[in-house]
């Protein structure tokens, strides 16, 4: 790709990021998913798991934060193309020279970064209101894990957005996909507590590897597990980007054939 074109794409992604932040800051549904729902989950989890001792609190912070990340990915990133169609801007942004994938990338980045606020909110709630002393075992590994988490979630969002457009039947299951991933991703309790047959399903999910890296880096454990999780997240991200490129082309072609870019 030529450097000049790359600069233009970066500029598009940056402006997509900016307008997404400006739009979602006044969107009650998104704010509920980012802030309030994870806080409610954090409180419930803390009450349920308080007999495990204070060191479990950081696990709850990370886990409830992950629920905010996943909900944002599912609803905000997953609906990023559908939303443009609802508000009538999809035709306008398909008719420009910039690929839709670049535009959605910027939107996903904004959504995922904003959703990290859920982790900050849970941290503040548990440390200030519940008085737990929270420490992160491996701060540097935690920070890098967070960066890999953002990358893998943004790329996962690039897969979900065209998938939901191509297959509305999948989108109808959107609400039903929220809690199963909380559980399969091992956000709030280890997947070892689940039946053995569900473990392969967890391994196929980037959110599981993100949660695993963040939990180990924050609560302590074998750091090789963190490195393994980073590798798997990167591999998944590469696969998501490759597959989503084809899906975006398919979405646009099918929408031009079926005349479904606009909504009357």
């Amino acid at each position, binding site marked *: 790709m030529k450097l000049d074109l790359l600069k233009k794409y970066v500029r598009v992604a940056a402006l997509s990021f*900016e307008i997404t932040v400006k739009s979602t800051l006044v969107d009650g549904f998104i704010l509920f998913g980012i802030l309030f729902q994870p806080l409610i989950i954090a409180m419930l989890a803390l009450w349920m798991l308080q007999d495990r001792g204070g060191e479990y609190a950081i696990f709850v912070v990370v886990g409830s934060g992950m629920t905010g990340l996943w909900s944002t990915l599912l609803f905000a990133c997953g609906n990023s193309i559908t939303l443009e169609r609802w508000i009538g801007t999809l035709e*306008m942004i398909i*008719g420009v020279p*910039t690929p839709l994938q670049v535009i959605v990338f910027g939107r996903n980045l904004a959504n995922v970064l904003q959703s990290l606020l859920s982790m900050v909110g849970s941290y503040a709630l548990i440390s200030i209101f519940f008085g737990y002393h929270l420490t992160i075992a491996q701060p540097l590994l935690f920070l890098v894990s967070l960066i890999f988490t953002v990358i893998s979630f943004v790329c996962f969002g690039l897969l979900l957005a065209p998938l939901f457009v191509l297959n509305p039947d999948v989108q109808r299951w959107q609400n039903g996909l929220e809690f199963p991933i909380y559980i399969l991703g091992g956000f709030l309790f280890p997947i070892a507590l689940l039946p053995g047959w569900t473990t392969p399903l967890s391994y196929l999910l980037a959110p599981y590897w993100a949660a695993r890296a963040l939990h180990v880096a924050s609560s302590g454990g074998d750091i090789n597990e963190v490195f393994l999780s980073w590798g798997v997240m990167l591999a998944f991200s590469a696969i998501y980007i490759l597959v989503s490129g084809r899906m975006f082309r398919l979405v646009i*072609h099918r929408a031009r054939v079926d005349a479904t*870019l606009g909504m009357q």
Partner: protein
Amino acid sequence: MPAIEVKNLRRLFKTNIGVIRRSIKEVVAVDDVSFEVQPGELFGLLGPNGAGKTTSVKMLATLMIPSGGSARVLGFDVVDQADKIRPRIGFIFGGERGLYWRLSAIDNLRYFAALYQMDPEVTKKRIPYLLELVGLADRGKEKVEGYSRGMKQRLHIARTLLHDPEVLFLDEPSIGLDPVAAREMRQTVLDLQAQKKTILLTTHYMFEADALCQRIGVINHGRIIALDTPAGLKKHVQDLSVIEIEVFGVPTATIDRIKALPGIDAVSIENRDQKQAMLVQSPRGSAAVPDLMSALREVRVGAVVVREPTLEDAYVRLVGGISEA
């Protein structure tokens, strides 16, 4: 080389009907349409709602793939070479949608400028210029959700001119605008034409097509039924006079009786506040008035005027049937 070249263009839509025993119904929206638009020309597509105007424009703007035939814009095929066309065209679809309402006008324009991959330095100068041009300079920082319909439409015009496109597709740009805003919009279109832009304008307002377009294609049921200059189209009715009768509530049976009178070519009704205007086209001119009065004896009648036909009368004759506006 024509700026727009359309050959035997066709577009089908498939719709599902039925709940239990579902079947697919095919509707022909655009049927064997052919025309050319020369560089710098202001070409109009005139037709009633559902005639196929918007579908034609969407195919030319690369947003929809034709079911048959071919179309080229600036020499490029709209299906296979859409990437070459998109940076060089602009389009507006009538109505308020298509903007980010939670953002300001300036943010909307900044975003679309980036999507059109414009140079940031050019964007900085272009946005204030365009806001000034469309009369939104002092409202540019306000959120679009607080704009009136006319302001949103003007912002659409600014958006479509951002990257200085060579070809403009304006699909019913004045729909829903108040008379002053519509007049300003028409002036903007004329200004753009003075800048040698190629413009394809769709409208169902006859006076708008008459005032703006150099050539007009009349489209109905997906087919071009006439293509000529406004003056050429008026020749379709030069043998006719139009008798305009002010009436108050005409029963359908009376209209049918008038249509059956000898020498009556077309009848249409226009609703005008508390009254209606019955427009009767006839080669008999004022000689037909006594027969019409006789047919309308049970109806309250106001002023009667016999006048020369306009483009609207040509349109009514071409499209046929009774239309109510």
